[in-house]
């Protein structure tokens, strides 16, 4: 049985990136709980090329691969910086290219970073409705980090660290459930096969 896969989408076009640092700390925490494969789609890598393409049917292979990775994830860990009170335009462009039905029912963990605490509700008012459109299953705990919580690009405040753990535990639970479902589906399949034989 192949391992489940968590795909991180980093919506920050800059590097180094606090958003990526926070997303990676959540991923690391998930991987302490469950053994999963991971991939990262980072706007710092693909942003410039992506901005030059408006339609899915004319994407170069590397970008098409990035979108397939997002669509094929078992769990998406979506992280975005806050620009003008919302996600960056380029971040939205990524999801504008994702097939509308591709994220249905997929667990999505929402992460955001901003200059200060005042933009924390961006998770509830901007990111969550976007995935509501996709009928994805956003996990209840979103993780928001302000600059002061991420000194030297690591999680530096206790409050944020404990939020990271809470969110990762929820993600791990969702992944275990997916693992159990796919195992029981496999058992059912093999039972059918043996009856047929």
């Amino acid at each position: 049985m192949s391992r489940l896969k968590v795909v991180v989408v980093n919506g920050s076009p800059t590097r180094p990136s606090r958003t990526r640092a926070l997303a990676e700390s959540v991923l690391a925490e998930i991987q302490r709980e469950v053994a999963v494969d991971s991939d990262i789609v980072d706007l710092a890598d693909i942003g410039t090329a992506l901005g030059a393409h408006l339609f899915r049917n004319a994407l170069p292979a590397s970008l098409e691969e990035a979108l397939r990775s997002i669509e094929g994830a078992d769990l998406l860990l979506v992280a975005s910086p806050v620009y003008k009170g919302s996600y960056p335009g380029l971040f939205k462009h990524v999801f504008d290219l994702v097939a509308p039905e591709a994220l249905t029912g997929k667990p999505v963990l929402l992460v955001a970073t901003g200059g200060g605490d005042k933009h924390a509700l961006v998770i509830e008012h901007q990111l969550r409705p976007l995935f509501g459109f996709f009928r994805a299953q956003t996990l209840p705990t979103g993780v928001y980090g302000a600059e002061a919580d991420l000194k030297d690009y690591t999680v530096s405040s206790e409050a944020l660290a404990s939020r990271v753990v809470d969110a990762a535990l929820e993600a791990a639970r969702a992944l275990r459930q997916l693992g159990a479902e796919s195992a029981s589906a496999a058992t059912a399949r093999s039972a059918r096969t043996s009856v047929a034989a």
Partner: protein
Amino acid sequence: MSILFLQGSPVEPSRSAALSGFVAAELDRRGVENTRLKLTDLPAHALLHARFGDPQIRAASERVAAASALVIATPVYKAAYSGLLKSFLDLLPQNGLDGKVVLPLATAGSPHHALALDYALRPVLQSMSPALVLPGVHATDSTVAKDEHGNYQLSDDIIDRLLQATDRLVYEYRALLSRRAQQVEPVPFDQVRCSV
């Protein structure tokens, strides 16, 4: 034709009322007429059962209709406005803010809920056809601290922001009044006596 303060906090004294109080005192100082409507004075039963015809609800609704500008203050509860404020707004007509200038004020326990002003309250106000919803002022509890006498002390930063907001409010309010004063009653065509 005055400025009406809607106080949306169910508790008293409240930090959000302290913000309104500051703006009201500033308006008094500038000679701008203003009055206050405490939503806790309204009958709870009438509010919760949407009794539009209740005399106190009707009187409150008429005061809103008569005001040219509103200052609406609310605490942030569960990342949005108070239920008390919303239950009152629900009793106003859909275009209940028609032609009015509105200044929203909010207080919250943490800065994490600052966006409630723009994402929760503003769309509600905007749906009621206001002339203008001014940028709001959000204050965290630590910037509206209670002193040993139980009075709220505003931080310098919040005072600056409230003064700026009051400037904008007074400017827009006066502009609104002067536009109204310049409005000419339309003359039906058959009463036109000469044209140029």
